[in-house]
């Protein structure tokens, strides 16, 4: 969802606390934030998303930029709340989680989403993603699903671009191995 040309005026109104503008901001950002949190296996991703949007509203008056910049800024806040949530739970970022966590995080959606999830599951891709480390999974998701560039991902994750590229390589290689292994098992 994109606000488009109206983004500057919507942003100014939202910065003043206008309710309608905040709703438009939320409608455009919530699916991406929730998707990112789901992909990271956060079961209570809706609660974390609520914290993310509260943080967005509080910092909104200080934001300057266009809609693309705003999208990256929202992911940055989501990533930080995600890190906070992991710390609160005591889970180490390097620790992969089981496929069940990811399936539960994705949950049961409408028919189209359920069918897509079923395809991912049967192809073994969902299990391969679940075996990635959180950083690898975040890089992969932002790159493949959100179509962010390496510099943009490095901003979101606050890591050097070289680290983002390395994470991307390892994630892709790990998924290939997983998919090959699953194919061999089948």
């Amino acid at each position, binding site marked *: 969802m994109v606000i488009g040309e109206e983004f500057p005026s919507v942003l100014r109104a939202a910065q003043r606390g206008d309710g309608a503008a905040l709703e438009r901001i939320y409608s455009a950002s919530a699916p991406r934030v929730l998707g990112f949190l789901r992909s990271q296996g956060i079961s209570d991703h809706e609660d974390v998303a609520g914290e993310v949007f509260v943080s967005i509203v509080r910092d909104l008056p200080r934001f300057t930029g266009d809609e693309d910049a705003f999208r990256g800024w929202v992911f940055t806040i989501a990533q930080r709340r995600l890190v906070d949530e992991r710390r609160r739970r005591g889970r180490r970022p390097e620790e992969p989680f089981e496929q069940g966590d990811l399936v539960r995080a994705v949950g049961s959606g409408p028919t189209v989403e359920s069918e897509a999830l079923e395809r991912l599951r049967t192809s073994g891709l969902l299990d391969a993603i679940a075996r990635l480390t959180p950083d690898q999974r975040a890089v992969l998701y932002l*790159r493949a699903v959100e179509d962010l560039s390496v510099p943009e991902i490095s901003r979101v994750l606050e890591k050097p671009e070289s680290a983002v590229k390395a994470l991307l390589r390892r994630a892709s290689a790990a998924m290939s191995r997983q998919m090959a292994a699953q194919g061999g098992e089948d």
Partner: protein
Amino acid sequence: MGPDDRRGTSEWSWWAASRRRVVSNPESTSMSEGVSEERGLLEVEGGVAELNDELRDAVPDLRAAFVRPAAPDIAAEHLARMKDAAPVVPFTAAPALSRRRVGAAEPSWARRALVAASALVVGAVGVGGLGMAGALPGPVQDTVADIGERLGLDIPDSHGVVPGDEGDDTPAEAPGVTGETPGQQGETPGQLDQTPANGAEPPGQVGATPGQSESTPGQSGSAPGQSGNPAATAPAQSGDPSATAPGQSGNPSETAPGSSGNPSETAPGQFGDPGATAPVESGTQGQGGQGQGGQGQSGQGQGNQGQGQGNQG
């Protein structure tokens, strides 16, 4: 919302520029449509090694599975939290600003007047206090002493001389003119000052002698009086009738102080002290027509000058 979030706020201004620079085809939305190649990742990272074919083919399913809007109840809850956290900023900032300006302008006059009055009082008290203590710099102290004198305050000048005492000192010059002979006579009134009751007549008597002696030199005494202390010479210049009278012009206190103003010639022990004690005594003498003799005592230096000029005359 932590400080980390605020730190990243301004960092996203580069976002649009970087995207415009990297993405050559904004219409492309999927990895399979060549987004990776267009964004330069394949060249950098070795192409397919970044994202395997399975993942690229699965991108639509990934989006469909993960990217979904929130449920209505969840969305309502989020929006309520957002509106609670939203800063309450009026749409028109002008009223608040204008109120602030008006509010600041109205008390400004009162504040300025109060500040000015306070500064004036503090300055006057401070300068006056320092002036009374004689702690001001020389020129300032003189000015303050002059002002204080006009106001009837005894504020010492830069030399530590109180104006009231200074007036007593000045006549010393004129007596100094009269010189040596009256100086001897000056001693007598000075001694007589010690006993005022007796002092009234003997100075007159004594003054008779100096008056005679000064009848001639009294004129010459007037000239040096000008060069000396104007206040002291005034009577002599104006031909002040009292000055011609022996008792006055011969006012032994005037002449005698001149002599007494020359402490080396007369009685240094009595008049040698130019300062405080003699003028006090002279104040008593002045009332008896002899007091100015004491004035000459404190004006020794000036008396000496007057004496020299008197000799010239």
